[in-house]
């Protein structure tokens, strides 16, 4: 059981990610025929909410660099994830090898 725990957990994660894509249906198109958007960022929704609570609020600063398009923005997000995942993978690789070598030394010293 313990051996398969991680695989089962990862399957559960995949299911939790996929489930909303299947459950949430796109709302019907609006009066003027524009398609309603789904799966927008919660951050943007909060920004809209600020506009509704205080319509006179004007943001007083702008981001330094705005990624020129959605593609560039997803490139940078992918880069961020790749850097992190790369390091974790490297560390686990080092650890696995080290653990295997320790075991080898242990068995040799026992002989």
């Amino acid at each position: 059981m313990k051996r398969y725990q991680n695989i089962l957990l990862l399957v559960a994660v995949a299911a939790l990610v996929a489930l909303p894509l299947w459950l949430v249906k796109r709302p019907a198109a609006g009066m003027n025929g524009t398609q309603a958007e789904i799966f927008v960022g919660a951050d943007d929704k909060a920004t809209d909410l600020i506009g509704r609570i205080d319509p006179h609020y004007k943001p007083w600063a702008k981001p330094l660099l705005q990624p020129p398009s959605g593609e560039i923005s997803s490139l940078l997000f992918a880069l961020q994830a790749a850097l992190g995942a790369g390091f974790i993978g490297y560390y686990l690789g080092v650890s696995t090898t080290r653990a295997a070598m320790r075991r080898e030394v242990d068995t040799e010293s026992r002989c």
Partner: protein
Amino acid sequence: MHIMEGFLPVKHAIGWSIVAAPFVGYGLHSINKRVKENPEQRMLLGVAAAFTFVLSALKLPSVTGSCSHPTGTGLGAILFGPAAMAPIGAVVLLFQAMLLAHGGLTTLGANIFSMAVVGPCAAAVIFRCAKSIRLPFSLSIFCAASLADLITYVTTSAQLALAFPDPSGGFAASFVKFAGVFALTQLPLAVIEGLLTVVVMNSLIRFNARELQEMKVTTAQVVQA
């Protein structure tokens, strides 16, 4: 949970920056001290930072029909204590504010406070409580990481409600609205973060049992189980 650039009134922006700064300063001091005393823990500290990098880059769909991302701060808080996560979270938030127009410099203090201070503190406290009532190790990790994720988003909702109280209902009404956006969306994502933290912790226990015991995260019983 990123409050967008310019979307906190000047007073709030300055206030949260002043509140967050000492945590980051103390965190840097505690990381320096730890690395000096235990240089071999440097790599593991890198793993904690990398985990936050990965998780906060993954925007995942939620049952509410909007997308949000986990924070990944629970793992590091359990391994190194909450103080270490303040500067690590600050680096991630700074990266996203400078290059991705996600979050912002004026809201950096508020974002650091929710993601890199409150979240990790919650994770550490919950982990300790779960251990003291002898919950199984994996379950303790899961509870600490997922609740820390959720509490981070509740904090953001409170910060926004403080800055933008509802004209008729005040702070409470506004808080309910913001929590409806953030906390509800976050529920399934918090579960995902909890599960992923257990996965990484399982791997660490399997291959780095000695280090984790030295750091007093696990006991010999957990490793043998």
